[in-house]
């Protein structure tokens, strides 16, 4: 049964010099894996940021699991995000002076209470049991992204947002990261929205939304 988890209605975003979103309408079901593809400047990252509460629309609304995000203040969005959303960035944005475990614990700190054992288990799950106390500079690009996955999922979010998570990785590491995501998604059944310009990456999703010039131009089931 299709249960709408996220409803995006007439979303617009203007900047001083450009219009990033021009009236986007989209419904996403719970536990779905959606890829949003498009060329650079198509508005896909802007859409992701607004869905994740990292940015606010100029017009329109995002409703997630019954909560209207557009009515929330910045701090209320932060609180909503820590309880419900995990984020994986293209640049890993790991804190350079914290170890892998401590970077994961940082996400726990804002959510509830840091738990070193739990953080270590999350890293073991993504295949980094031998890198628990390494700093980001001591990790490869693929390993850093796996730390990001552990950090994003440590608080069991209902929604995982990934903005070009494999954008800086080679094909081998891309495959490793995507397989990991697939495995955890099948185990934990959260919703994924993944933004990419790479058709290989987009193909891992069950649904493909194509954006062009701030609009959704196609929306197809992958399989």
């Amino acid at each position: 049964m299709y249960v709408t988890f996220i409803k995006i209605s007439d979303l617009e975003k203007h900047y001083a010099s450009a219009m990033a979103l021009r009236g986007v309408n989209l419904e996403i079901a719970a536990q779905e894996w959606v890829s949003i593809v498009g060329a650079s400047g198509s508005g896909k990252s802007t859409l992701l940021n607004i869905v994740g509460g990292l940015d606010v629309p100029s017009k329109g609304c995002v409703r997630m699991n019954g909560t209207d995000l557009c009515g929330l203040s910045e701090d209320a969005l932060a609180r909503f995000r820590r309880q419900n959303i995990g984020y994986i960035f293209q640049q890993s944005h790991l804190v350079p002076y914290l170890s892998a475990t401590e970077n994961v614990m940082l996400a726990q700190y804002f959510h509830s209470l840091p738990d070193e054992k739990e953080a270590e288990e999350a890293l073991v799950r993504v295949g980094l049991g031998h890198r628990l106390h390494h700093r980001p500079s001591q990790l490869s690009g693929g390993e850093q992204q796996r730390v990001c996955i552990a950090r994003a999922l440590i608080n069991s979010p209902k929604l995982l947002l990934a903005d070009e998570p494999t954008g800086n990785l080679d094909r081998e590491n891309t495959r490793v990261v995507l397989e990991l995501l697939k495995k955890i998604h099948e185990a934990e059944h959260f919703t994924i929205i993944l933004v990419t310009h790479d058709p290989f990456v987009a193909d891992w999703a069950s649904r493909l939304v194509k954006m062009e010039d701030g609009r959704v131009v196609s929306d197809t089931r992958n399989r």
Partner: protein
Amino acid sequence: MKGFRWFVFFLGRSVSQRWMRMVIAALSVTLAVSVIVGMAGLSLGIREKLGDALKAYGANIIVSSVDGRNMPAEAWSAVRSLPSVASVLPQLYGQIRIQDVPVELIGTDMDTVRSQGWRMKGEWPSSPGQVAVGSSLGEVLGVGAGDPLELMGSTGVETFTVTGFFERGSDADRGLMVGLKDAGRLLAMPDQLSALLVRSRGEIAEAVPEISRSYAGISVKGLRQIAQAETSLLAKIQLLMALVTVVVVGACVISVGSTMGATVLERREEIGLMKAIGGTRRSVSLFYLSEAGTIGLLGGLLGWPLGFISAQAVSRGAFGSYISVPHILGVAGLVLGLVIAVLAGHFPVRDAMKPRAAEILRGE
């Protein structure tokens, strides 16, 4: 780890990453706190010194010659017999040399001095050829009671016997006291007086006119007038000290503010990340303001003893003795350091929190 322990851990890690910059910023807080504590200590101490000086003299009226020169010793006889006068201490001031170094000499009546209750280690001179040495001068000369001391005056070198060491908490502690006859001879000012320090029996306002009429050519001033003049000067000095303090604190705020500004600029990505993973503005600000607070505490911790030491050094140099600095100034110094640093850090941190996470992580 509990939340607070993790917070402290994270703070410690963050501080240790840029400890050099933190230390430099802390040094500017140290300077500000040491100036504040030093100036406040001196300011309180000067008042105390002034109070002590007035109390030490026991006098509330000073009599001197109208033309600024010495007056005849018979002025003393004229004044001390007046009904409005309780006591009179005659003083003859001048300079002699000890081992070719000029030293202040006060000639006075030792019987009257004994009744003043000034601090004395040893005995006041009781006969000609004896000298009491100021405590500060005594330390420099390294003489003890009973030792001979050669004084070079107008008559040449005379050998006196040291009877004791006095402490009045003023410049006089760097000088000598002898009987009036000895002073008159050494200074070639026989039967002369520089001043009479008078204690009135009743109100100063009643004593002053009576004393003025008792002998021609004398100037009579209530010490309150002198004290008021000194208080006015003191107020000016304190104002200057306050202005210097304000300037130093201002410079410190700028320095710490610049450090914090550079810190938050460097760590924009970290700030954006914390906001993205669910940190509210308040919780993220707390991290960075705590770093500023750490700078302040460190600076306060170092600044307070430095301020205390510098106040004592200035007092020793200016007054020849130490002042008592209240210990509460230490706590105040620590708190002040914290407040200055957090205030300085507040504005750059507040500005850093303004952009949304998406803007920061996009690199805007």
